[in-house]
């Protein structure tokens, strides 16, 4: 569904390096069992997508609500016209 | 719209059934009507093959407030309180997606309970999977337990008990049966019959999407591209957060007496809820699907009528109360929309705005459904393959005991119950594994004493002898209640069987229902509700016949409830009840690779008397320990008492393997101060609590620590590595 607002932002949130990520480890263990070798360094995070009028506000949204900076890193990966 | 040739067959209707629909309508059904009939006339909704059989079950009793036919059975527990309870299956969805299948199974049974006006206070579950050396069975087991935990824990209803068995016969068709118990002041109970011509029909809760439509999508008017086909999911997704708001909202609506009737939406969604409400009330209903809040745009009217989106309820409201209802729902952040009204047409009429898109007589949908007679035929011998042998034909008693404790059917279920919250609500005084039944006190609800709840069934013994096996399930449930001093008030059952059109399955079903009936009559326990799940079979054959029994009872003194564990050095250990152990149908026989085709007959009236005496003993004397004998026989039961109490025992018994490991109904181990135990009529003292090993004279001596390691490690070990 396309929003009427200006741009569509995509935020990736990952666990901070150095903090134990058991979800990532569980996935890393499960893949070889299915026949996929050569996999390492798996981490599991979250994706948040939103239509916004002012894309410059997205980092602040991340700081205040979308991520917990104590234990997570965030990255605004994509900002494009909502109509695209 | 014209229909493609014979879509009714794709929807599971026979040609004869299709003709029956045309006859009742006086014309051919349109696509929407066909979709609705295909679901209302499905086995799951109509009980075509079981309804006649179920009529033989006893449903009356002095404590019964609501019997079969309402959303849940209800019994009176004194102090103006009533307890509602029911068990339901969610087998096929769980085999597709175990997490969501099991979660929505819990969600569904919770709704049945608050639909009668009771606050859900406990969940129990009975599960069946293939053996744990199968990756698929581990996947289904793991997913189902996580799903039950997720839903129950999130909504704040404690999961207080349950059982799980692993047998090859369930490899392709797992079983997930969820039971819920709720409590209400008697005056808050509500029925589901729609009433009051002109009253409004209001839909509460989640938006409606395409959940559960699956097979009926053959009726969609547009051709679906490959891409869009994925938008028609068969799996229902549950949202416990939405349901927690719905529970509070509905209970407050009832407290304020704002509703004329209430019904939950389950299988077949709006179609079944509305037609069942109309049928009970002997009224008609007009529904406008364009008013239903949707999760996806462009849903067709038939999709809206049969969607199985979760967390929705239907209520009937008098026009002058409508504003108050909407305001209360708003405060709870529960969506509430008027979607129709009660009429005197005795028809379910579906509108899309102004346009009439479906018109069906309510009787044709609910009461006038073709019912079939079963054609039972006893098989010549055992129809199931023998299980693989895992234990030597001749082995020491010690080896047999350790093999049994390591068998997943007997081993500790800690892996399961530690994923559940049994304590939220602060009523639970006996958590899983600490006693034979869950015990919940009623004080905070204004009641006295406590409720005891258990759910039981052993499919393998029923496969040996459906009549006796089913009767034994009832006895076992009552025995678990007796071990905590509770008197049964009512029973709910879920009948899980294969294809009833096959004569041997029809025979299993018939004999099992007869066994249930006779056991209920002997014990004086009425059946207040239940569920049937048929066609549980695949290419490898049918599941074991699995009648699952849930019971609720009451006990007067919560302070005196025994535990399974031995409590103190020096306590006397005795056998009470009526116990005639035999190896037929036992777990040891299974481990030896044998599945028999008979069980020793059971004297039901004698067992009923014995249970009364066990209950009286538990209530009457100081008995810190009581544990019933079931899988694995007396030796396993003693081992469990030692493990749970972290105390050894010195016991002497006469007899052979059958005495140690034989199974059968009626036996209970008790332990307590010598004087107390001696005062129990008919008790046979067999030993004393003490030391740090289980010693059975002349048979075995095993340290409790070793018993514990084997017992606790078995199931986690299946998941390690």
């Amino acid at each position, binding site marked *: 569904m396309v929003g009427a607002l200006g741009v569509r932002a995509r935020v990736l949130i990952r666990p901070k390096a150095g*903090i*134990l990520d*058991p*979800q990532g480890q*569980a996935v890393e263990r499960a893949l070889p069992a299915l026949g996929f070798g050569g996999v390492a360094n798996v981490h599991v995070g979250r994706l948040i997508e939103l239509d916004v009028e002012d894309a410059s506000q997205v980092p602040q949204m991340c700081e205040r*609500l*979308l991520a*917990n900076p*104590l*234990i997570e890193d965030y990255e605004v990966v994509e900002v494009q016209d909502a109509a695209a | 719209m014209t229909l493609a040739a014979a879509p009714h067959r794709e929807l599971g209707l026979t040609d004869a059934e299709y003709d029956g629909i045309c006859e009742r309508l006086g014309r051919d059904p349109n696509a929407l009507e066909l979709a609705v009939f295909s679901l209302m006339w499905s086995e799951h909704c109509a009980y075509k093959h079981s309804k006649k059989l179920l009529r033989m079950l006893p449903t009356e009793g002095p404590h019964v407030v609501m019997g079969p036919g309402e959303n849940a059975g209800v019994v009176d527990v004194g102090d103006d309180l009533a307890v509602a309870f029911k068990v339901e299956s969610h087998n096929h969805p769980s085999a597709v997606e175990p997490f969501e299948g099991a979660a929505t199974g819990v969600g569904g049974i919770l709704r049945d309970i608050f639909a009668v006006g009771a606050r859900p206070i406990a969940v129990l579950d009975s599960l069946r999977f293939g053996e744990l050396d199968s990756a698929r069975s581990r996947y289904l087991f793991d997913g189902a337990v*996580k799903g039950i*935990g*997720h839903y129950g*824990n*999130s*909504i*704040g209803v404690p999961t207080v008990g349950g059982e799980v068995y692993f047998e090859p016969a369930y490899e392709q068709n797992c079983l997930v049966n969820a039971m819920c118990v709720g409590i209400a002041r008697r005056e808050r109970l509500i029925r589901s019959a729609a009433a009051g011509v002109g009253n409004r029909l209001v839909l509460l809760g989640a938006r409606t999407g395409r959940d559960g439509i699956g097979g009926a999508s053959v009726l969609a008017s547009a051709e679906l591209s490959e891409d869009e086909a994925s938008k028609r999911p068969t799996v229902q997704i549950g*949202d*416990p*957060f939405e349901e*927690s*708001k719905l529970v509070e909202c509905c209970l407050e609506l009832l407290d304020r007496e704002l509703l004329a009737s209430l019904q939950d939406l389950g299988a077949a969604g709006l179609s079944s809820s509305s037609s069942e409400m109309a049928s009970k009330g002997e009224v008609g209903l007009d529904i406008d699907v364009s008013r239903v809040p949707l999760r996806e745009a462009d849903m067709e009217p038939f999709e809206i009528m049969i969607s199985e989106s979760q967390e929705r309820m239907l209520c009937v409201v008098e026009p002058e109360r409508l504003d108050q209802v909407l305001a209360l729902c708003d405060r709870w*952040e529960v969506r509430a929309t008027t979607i129709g009204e009660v009429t005197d047409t005795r028809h379910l009429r579906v509108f899309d705005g102004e346009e009439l898109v479906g018109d069906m007589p309510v009787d044709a949908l609910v009461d006038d459904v073709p019912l079939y007679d079963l054609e039972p035929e006893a098989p010549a011998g055992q129809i199931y393959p023998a299980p693989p042998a895992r234990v030597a034909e001749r082995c020491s008693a010690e080896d047999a005991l350790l093999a049994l404790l390591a068998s997943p059917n007997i081993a500790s279920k800690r892996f399961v*119950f*530690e*994923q*559940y*919250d*049994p*304590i*939220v*609500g*602060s009523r*639970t*005084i006996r*958590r899983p594994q600490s006693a034979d039944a869950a015990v919940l*006190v009623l004080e*905070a609800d204004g009641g006295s004493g406590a409720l005891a709840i258990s759910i039981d069934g052993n499919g393998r013994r029923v496969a040996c002898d459906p009549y006796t096996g089913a009767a034994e399930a009832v006895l076992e449930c009552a025995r678990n209640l007796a071990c905590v001093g509770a008197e049964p008030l009512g029973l709910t059952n879920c009948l899980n069987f294969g294809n009833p059109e096959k004569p041997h399955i029809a025979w299993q079903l018939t004999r099992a229902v007869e066994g249930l009936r006779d056991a209920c009559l002997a014990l004086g326990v009425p059946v207040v509700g239940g569920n049937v799940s048929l066609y549980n079979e695949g290419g490898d054959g049918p599941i074991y016949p699995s009648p699952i029994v849930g019971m609720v009872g009451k006990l007067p003194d*919560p*302070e005196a409830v025994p535990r399974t564990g031995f409590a103190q050095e020096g306590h006397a250990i005795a056998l009470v009840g009526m116990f005639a152990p035999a190896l037929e149908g036992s777990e040891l026989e299974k481990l030896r690779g044998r599945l028999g085709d008979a069980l020793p007959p059971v004297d039901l009236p004698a067992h009923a008397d014995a249970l009364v005496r066990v209950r009286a003993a538990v209530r009457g004397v100081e008995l810190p320990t009581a544990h019933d004998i079931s899988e694995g026989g007396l030796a396993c039961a003693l081992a469990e008492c030692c493990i749970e109490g972290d105390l050894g025992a010195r016991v002497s018994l006469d007899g052979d393997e059958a005495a140690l490991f034989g199974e059968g109904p009626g036996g209970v181990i008790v332990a307590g101060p010598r004087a107390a135990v001696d005062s129990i009529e008919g008790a046979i003292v067999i030993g004393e609590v003490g030391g740090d090993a289980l010693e059975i004279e002349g048979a075995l001596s095993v340290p409790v620590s070793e018993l514990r390691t084997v017992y606790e490690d078995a199931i986690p070990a299946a998941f390690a590595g």
Partner: protein
Amino acid sequence: MKFGVVRFPGSCDEVDALMACRRFADADLLWHGDSDLAGIDAVVVPGGFSYGDYLRVGAIARFSPLMESVIEFARDGGPVLGICNGFQVLCEASLLPGALLPNDSLRFVCRQVEVAVENPDTPFTRACDQGDLLSIPVKHTTGRYYAPPGTLPEEQVVLRYAPGHNPNGSMNDVAGVCNEAGNVMGLMPHPEHAVDPLTGSADGGRLFESLAMVPVA
């Protein structure tokens, strides 16, 4: 002393907490949408799945009108106890150091555990002695405590899981912490489910007993 027990959409153990508080003092439920704390001397933020644990545990509850008042109440020195989900909310609100992460087993775990009282000089533990062992149940999926190195002084560790009792992989076996001023505490175990020997243990009652002794204006 009057306790206020917060209720969010999705709270599960708020009535249990209310009943536990009422064994020791007056107590009422506080609706998340109201911001009025008048008459309340101590706030309890209970366990459950507030807002369905959506986004991150406790992340949305932290912004409710009532929580804005609770934050102000805490900054003014008022006692605030966060239990399980409540602990998560207080960390999200930065009233306590650290954060709660998924259990290392990745499973929900419900188990009776023993916790040792490491700091008896808080309003929450005054009825206890140093080293006392309390038997209290835990029940959570996201209870692994973590604080970046150097951000948690030792005196702010109030409760520690006894050896062998850490159910979730918490850093240094930390079970409960307080803020620097000592008026805000969070713990993963559920003391409200340990106030009656009939349901298992009464050790948790000592936290409510301690709070009930806090002098009120």
